[in-house]
């Protein structure tokens, strides 16, 4: 399948020239095409922010919901129609800040969805405040004396909660990013892909160059099923590891824990209540 099946044609894209979002969009289209996922079978779920506009820039079904709230509807959509490929994609402020509780609990629930987070360590759409992943000391119009709280570590959180797939990619490396996305989308269960991405407008600290010198790729010696080793990787301070850091394929997916597909494999949209059973239930309430 060609990745242009996802192209929207001539549209006005709200991203800044040079933004890492363009590369992420391109890699996502390529990954989806390689996996033969059609636009009709794909649901892009997002929140609010510059990254969260991505569903409008590729042909797919779209649920562009509230800031921080992409994961709950994504979980529900997959549960109601497991045949769909569901991707929840937003920025670091949306997923790690506003949506923190949903992040924790979606990792626990383990729906078969892919969670892509554009992590540029700054708030873009609201013009340059600190994000949950901003480094200590990072100065902004709000954090005027520099960020004074520890940055959020999504990788360590994911491994701590036994999230079934935890990876990190870099928007400056198209091929590797695409490969990681392919693995994440193919994984059965919740898959987090944290994508490091420069913000050319508001983050003059974490630039393409900065990310290049502060990251490295995991080699074959790393065993992603080794949770303790993965946790060690997640806590490394000098350089951030890129690649699939942790994977647990043993966990059951949320939608397989429900009983709604045992007797009826059909889609929800055609289902009607069983009034006969309901009458039996009501009669039993008379006792």
């Amino acid at each position, binding site marked *: 399948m060609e990745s242009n099946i996802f192209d929207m044609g001539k549209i006005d894209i709200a991203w800044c020239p040079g933004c890492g979002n363009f590369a992420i969009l391109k890699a996502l289209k390529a990954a989806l095409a390689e996996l033969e996922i059609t*636009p*009709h*079978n794909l*649901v892009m*779920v997002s929140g*609010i922010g510059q990254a969260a*506009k991505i*569903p*409008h820039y590729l*042909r*797919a*079904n*779209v*649920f*562009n*919901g*509230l800031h921080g*709230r992409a*994961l*709950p*509807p*994504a*979980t*529900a*959509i997959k*549960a*109601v*129609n497991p*045949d*769909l490929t569901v991707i929840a994609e937003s920025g670091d402020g949306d997923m790690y800040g506003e949506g923190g*509780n*949903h992040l*924790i*609990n979606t990792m626990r629930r383990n729906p078969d969805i892919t969670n892509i987070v554009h992590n540029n360590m700054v708030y873009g759409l609201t013009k340059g405040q600190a994000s949950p992943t901003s480094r200590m000391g990072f100065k902004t119009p709000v954090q005027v004396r520099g960020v004074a709280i520890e940055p959020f570590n999504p990788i360590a959180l994911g491994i701590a909660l036994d999230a079934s797939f935890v990876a990190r990619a870099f928007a400056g490396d198209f091929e590797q990013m695409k490969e990681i996305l392919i693995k994440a989308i193919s994984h059965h269960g919740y898959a987090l892909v944290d994508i490091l991405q420069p913000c050319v407008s508001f983050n003059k600290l974490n630039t393409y160059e900065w990310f290049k010198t502060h990251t490295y790729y995991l080699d074959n010696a790393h065993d992603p099923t080794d949770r303790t080793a993965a946790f060690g990787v997640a806590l490394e301070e000098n350089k951030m590891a890129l690649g699939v850091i942790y994977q647990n394929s043993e966990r059951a997916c949320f939608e397989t824990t*429900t*009983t*709604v597909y045992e*007797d*009826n494999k059909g*889609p*929800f*949209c055609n*289902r*009607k*209540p*069983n*009034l006969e*059973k*309901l*009458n039996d*239930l*009501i*009669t039993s*309430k*008379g*006792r």
Partner: protein
Amino acid sequence: MGNIPRKIKDDVSLVICGSAGKGIQTVETILTQLLKRSGFHVFGTKEYMSRVRGGSNSTEIRVSSTSRPSLLDRINILVPLDKAALKHVQKRISENTLILADKEHFGPVDEKEAQGLIDFPFSQAASDIGGAIYANSIVAGLLAQLFGIDQEEMSLFLDQFFSEKKPEVIENNQKAAAKGYEIAQRIVEAEGIAIDIERHPHIAEDIFINGAEAVGIGAIAGGCNFLSSYPMSPSTGVLVFLSEQAEKFGIISEQAEDEISAVNMMLGAWYAGARAMVTTSGGGFALMEEGISLAGVMESPAVIHLAQRPGPGTGLPTRTAQGDLELALYSGHGDFPRIILAPGRLEEAVYLTRDAFHLAAKFQIPVFILTDQYFVDSYYNIPSLDFQSKNRENDIIETEDDYRRYRITENGISPRGVPGFGKGLVVTDSDEHDEAGHITEDLDMRVAMVDKRKRKLVDMKKAAFPPELVGTDNYDTLLIGWGSTYPVIREAWSLLGREDVAFLHFSQVHPLHPDTSAYLRQAKKRIVIEGNSDAQFASLLRRHTKQEIHQTILKYNGAQFSVEEMTTRLKETIDIKE
């Protein structure tokens, strides 16, 4: 002692009171089931503290010749399971109250407290049988005997009720019930007690449910197959009921991490083709508000069961109120249409909850079912229900290539597709959007979309449930109520016996039925009755009908109006001169 009326006719108010976790519930279940099977009209309601053990909780069981499903202040028979219970219901005790108390278990009581106490030594009897736990069956047996329930009938019921317990336990409960009958016979003979209530054998076939079950049954009838909620009193009963039924009826039931997640899951579920709902209460609903607004802009169906309790803040978690009407009405930022239903009777809760799903799907809007603690926790017998007449219509279309989720239409309703069903793509957005669903800042498109959403109101008003008039058409004074107050206002109204007074009950409070103004215009005096301190429904009526509301009868102490209180306040209010 000789002054206490020993003969009670037609309508008995029985109250059992004790600390939490001490088995009131067991006595209540056994007794009410037996009474109902025996052909009595039975109503039960409870008030309880926000704690797991201790304190004082009480259950009122009203047994009557005709259906009277409303709270009484009066107590004909009181069974206080401990001394604190007496104090807890003190205000409701009169010289006409028979008090059946275990004097030995009570310990020393002062002379005043001792007056009118009839000794009912169940504690010693229970421990003789095998432990304090058997007190429940003794109490149930005693009360069953007072109401003239056949002992054999009780014995059969207990075998069934305890069927999953060990044989020894069943046997001991049988012994305990028999002991209750024995003590009762002694008391009846000594005190000359006689209860005379007409039985109707057909009641045995009636349905016996509480408000939470009524909402749950209605949800199933409406096709509910997805429930996401966070537990919060008093809304949890619906979550529990539907979770129990989930496997049988193909429902995904998920306890969300918080109410924000719950409401957003619900919207995701509708988007993908489910019929979804949330059940919540004031503070939890407050957290859902942004999600309601999302439903507004996405034109997503949504069903919200909002069981009210007194706020603000945590308020009184286990008590009742009608204080969230304006919260529901104005919840969510921005302008968008919604429907608010407020059942007053159990049948109404069943049918309105069912219809809430149909209306939500048809108009693609949020629909609220507004109940309260009193409503969801009260139960009574109702005749059978009919679901065959109204099943789910095919409200989801198979999409074509050029499908646009928000196609501008005359009635404002755009045919709804779901992802994966048809050739089209389904794009929905919390941003203002174009017809295809994509984000836009075209200000003309913005106006077109707001107007489109608003146009639905025309048909929504046509579909509104009309208010129910109780009494003659030639009224001068109109009593107006909504939601759970229906039975109590109706009973108090009938006790008044005034032909110039009618009662208008609203089970849909927004948008109001077009006949509302005419009903109000006919009255010289309009009195709105509701369970909040701001007279929220009165404000809504004034604004909607441009007519004056002359008096309000409000209650906001956390308890429902009783029949006696309603009667007194109606008498006080009806003849006030302007």
